[in-house]
């Protein structure tokens, strides 16, 4: 295979290399690597923006009483924090990883639809500019929670709702285009000999994720459109006074929202399934069952949405159905965790930075999985619902789950992207500070929630004071820890560090390691042949 790769580089000499600097390169680029870089930087900036909103939240919750912000602004912070993290940080980061890695992992020269790729990225900054600008409007930005339950988001919201709706539409369009691109690329541009069941798991999980995106983003678009017309054009989809139903909104939202949760975790499963075998120096255990487990999780994700709504007053038959369907998801998810542990079993492990983040992922995501199983049990969910126990649960699966997997992926592939090894000292600081602080931040939330503290409140009873102080301290520390990562990324982008080999990790396997580091601007213009 390596001879083919050399030929590829030779062919590349006849073409132009990376175009020169300047904004036009980035505005007009159709190159999957450039667009991947744009997505990843955009996601990281949004991560810092959403994170600074979390800092405002934690500063206000540091002590009982209102000190820093008023309740209305507090609600805007929780709302926009959620929206920015979900749609601005996690999803674009995964799309960025897909852009960079999917073509290189399947031996394709680029994404199948490069111009749409450019467009799907470049509408994102506008979407978030609109959303963030709404915070400065008279009356403030969206303050009804990222789940924007009607009628709080319709009759009782302020005029910035129009901007919120428009920006969500743009984000949705961007996601759908990104997903179409991934599907078309994977179905049509695999190198000869790469059958579906030979694809790396990161490609598989993204392939399935992309179908989820196409299925549910239009549902979200429908939901926001109905909110728009209810608020501004006199319809009554969600108002009983006009024959509608506010709970209908929740059904529509969570029909999008629950698959959305898996959109944010399936690519993470793929990343961990790439990294663990590399550093255990042993092939992934149960490749086929991993693929089937991912597909089952994706299918089940369409029939569990109402477990977010157990207190809305469903018929008991509905509650039983959604309880059992939700519990079933733990079976394929369990299979994945068991497979990762079995991959490590009797391997020869080393613990470089990607592996450390992957191990932290497996342990902490599983903790989030346990609290998820507890939340599935309807009668007990009545006590947990809308408390900090839920906040703890979804931050374990999204921060120490999705975001830790993104960190793992960034450390794993950064040498390939930048051509230099990252600064190990900064990486260690980043990992250990993040690991400790994230648990100081989110673990006590379980206790606070069980003791009865509702979520989304700007002020709380005195019994919760000590724990909240610790949670805030953990929050500030976790926020600051990310600055190590920022410094590390800047160094890597400036090519400061030892040059990286084509395959910087001893146990790594896959097409992406067959090409030099940094990856040339064009790769696999002649497809490699897979045996």
């Amino acid at each position, binding site marked *: 295979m390596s001879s083919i790769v050399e030929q590829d580089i030779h062919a590349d000499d006849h073409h132009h290399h990376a175009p020169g600097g300047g904004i036009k390169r980035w505005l007009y680029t159709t190159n999957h690597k450039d667009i991947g870089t744009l997505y990843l930087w955009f996601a990281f900036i949004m991560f810092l923006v959403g994170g600074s909103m979390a800092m405002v939240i934690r500063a206000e919750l540091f002590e*009982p*009483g*209102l000190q820093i912000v008023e*309740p*209305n602004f507090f*609600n805007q912070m929780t709302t926009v924090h959620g929206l920015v993290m979900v749609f601005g940080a996690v999803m674009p980061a995964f799309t960025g990883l897909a852009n960079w890695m999917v073509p290189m992992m399947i031996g394709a020269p680029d994404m199948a639809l490069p111009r749409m790729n450019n467009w799907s990225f470049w509408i994102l900054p506008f979407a978030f500019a609109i959303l963030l600008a709404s915070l400065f*409007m008279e*009356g403030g930005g969206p*303050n*009804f929670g990222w789940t924007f*339950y009607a*009628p*709080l988001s319709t*009759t009782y919201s302020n005029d910035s709702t129009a901007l919120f709706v428009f920006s969500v539409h743009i984000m949705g369009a961007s996601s759908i285009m990104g997903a179409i691109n991934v599907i078309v690329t994977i179905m049509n541009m695999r190198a000869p000999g790469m059958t579906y069941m030979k694809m790396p798991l990161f490609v598989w999980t993204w392939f399935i994720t992309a179908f989820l995106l196409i299925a549910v983003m239009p549902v979200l678009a429908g939901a926001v459109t109905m909110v728009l017309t209810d608020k501004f054009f006199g319809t009554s989809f969600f108002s*009983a006074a006009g024959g509608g*139903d*506010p709970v209908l909104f929740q059904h529509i939202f969570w029909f999008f929202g629950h698959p959305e949760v898996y959109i944010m975790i399936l690519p993470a499963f793929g990343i961990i399934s790439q990294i663990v075998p590399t550093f*255990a120096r*042993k*092939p992934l*255990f*149960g490749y086929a069952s991993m693929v089937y487990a991912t597909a089952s999780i994706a299918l089940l994700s369409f029939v569990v949405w109402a477990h977010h709504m157990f*207190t*809305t*007053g469903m018929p008991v038959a509905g509650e*039983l159905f959604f309880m059992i369907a939700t*519990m*079933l998801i733990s*079976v394929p998810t369990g*299979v994945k965790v*068991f497979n990762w*542990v*079995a*991959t*490590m079993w*009797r391997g*020869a*492990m*080393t613990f470089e930075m990607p592996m450390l983040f992957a191990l932290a992922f497996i342990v902490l995501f599983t903790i989030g999985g*346990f609290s998820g199983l*507890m939340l599935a*049990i309807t009668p*007990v969910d009545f*006590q947990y*619902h*809308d*408390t900090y126990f839920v906040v703890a649960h979804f931050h374990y699966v999204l921060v120490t789950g999705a975001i830790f997997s993104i960190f793992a992926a960034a450390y794993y592939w950064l040498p390939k992207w930048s051509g230099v090894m990252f600064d190990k000292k900064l990486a260690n600081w980043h990992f250990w500070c993040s690991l400790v602080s994230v648990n100081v931040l989110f673990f006590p939330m379980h*206790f606070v929630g*069980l*003791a*009865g503290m509702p979520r989304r*409140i*700007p*002020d*709380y*009873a*005195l019994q*919760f*004071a*000590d724990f909240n102080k610790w949670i805030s301290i953990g929050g500030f520390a976790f926020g600051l820890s990310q600055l190590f990562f920022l410094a590390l990324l800047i160094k890597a982008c400036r090519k400061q560090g030892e040059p990286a080999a084509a395959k910087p990790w001893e146990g790594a396997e896959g097409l992406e390691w067959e090409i030099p580091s940094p990856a040339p601007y064009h790769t696999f213009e002649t497809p490699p042949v897979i045996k």
Partner: protein
Amino acid sequence: MNIGAIKFAAASLGLISASVSATDMPLNLTKGVTDISGQVYDLHMYIFWICTVIGIVVFGAMFWSILHHRKSKGVKPADFHESTKVEILWTAIPFVILIAIAWPAAKTLLAMEDPSESDLTIEVTGSQWKWHYKYHGTDVEYYSVLATQSEQIHNKFEKGDNYLLEVDRPLVIPTGKKVRFLVTSDDVIHSWWVPAFAVKKDANPGFINEAWTRVNEAGLYRGQCAELCGKDHGFMPVVVIAKEPAEFDAWFAEQEQIIRDKKAEEQRWLSMSMSMDDAMDMGQKIYTANCAACHQASGEGLPGAFPALKGSKIATNNNPAEHIGIVLNGKKGMPAFGKQLSLAEIAAVVTYERNAWGNNTKQLVQPKDVNDVKNGK
């Protein structure tokens, strides 16, 4: 300077010790005071221990592997990468565990969702940001509003022990009886939650949800609104007092008497007129308690969210009827106060709004005027 520093240190020490002494947060879910809440607690612990055991097994295997199967110990990696037997086994075992969880959970759930054969029904209505209770089929009804002073919230007064968990008028229910709740809302979605009863039910505008409880021990139980319902979501607690049935009956008879007296009083008000000073005094109190959260003490509102009353057309024109109508019946995001405030109180607050902050209309609204608007005259 030094004295100031010492004072500051002493004050902050005082604050710290105060916050420590006020803290006795339970670390686990409450067992509560009903049979159902006890079952819920048992389920919670049962699932918690199952998760703990699975966690010990999985993380144990993982950390064993991390400790022993490392390259630095010179191990050669094995090459196995599948085993149908093992994979079927660890798909099947979780199924069995899930059935062992689902069975008792379903039993408890069916009991929780059966509000039939209740002894007493209470209508619970949420609105921004208070609860309304009506004893079904009687005239006894009242609002239950946060009793914590805003000075405590804004750190001007020291915070009391029940900070944010206290109301002016708690709900009162009898012990040992099956009490059914009919839960709904006047505006956005709220959620009525008392952890000690394991009852949490959303209050959906336009729809009625059912829940029930049978409290075993007399006592005072605190909860909060659990569904984000706007600006003051964090400030609408639920407080329930459970009394022995005899005590409850006495209390209830007393409430009925109070209602009768109030109705008689209302009739008297219709023929009386308030003086400007009385109306302004009373009006300011009502305004602070009910209106200032949105329209602000200054009457300037919050631009874009809550309209200003200061200098507004409706509050300064010659015809107070429209103004009275809005207070009585609400408008868009604003709740209706017709059920909550008496005729005299509405007359006073409208008078206040028409004469405070330089609105100087010099108009005095009387209870009779309010009654006229109410009856569509």
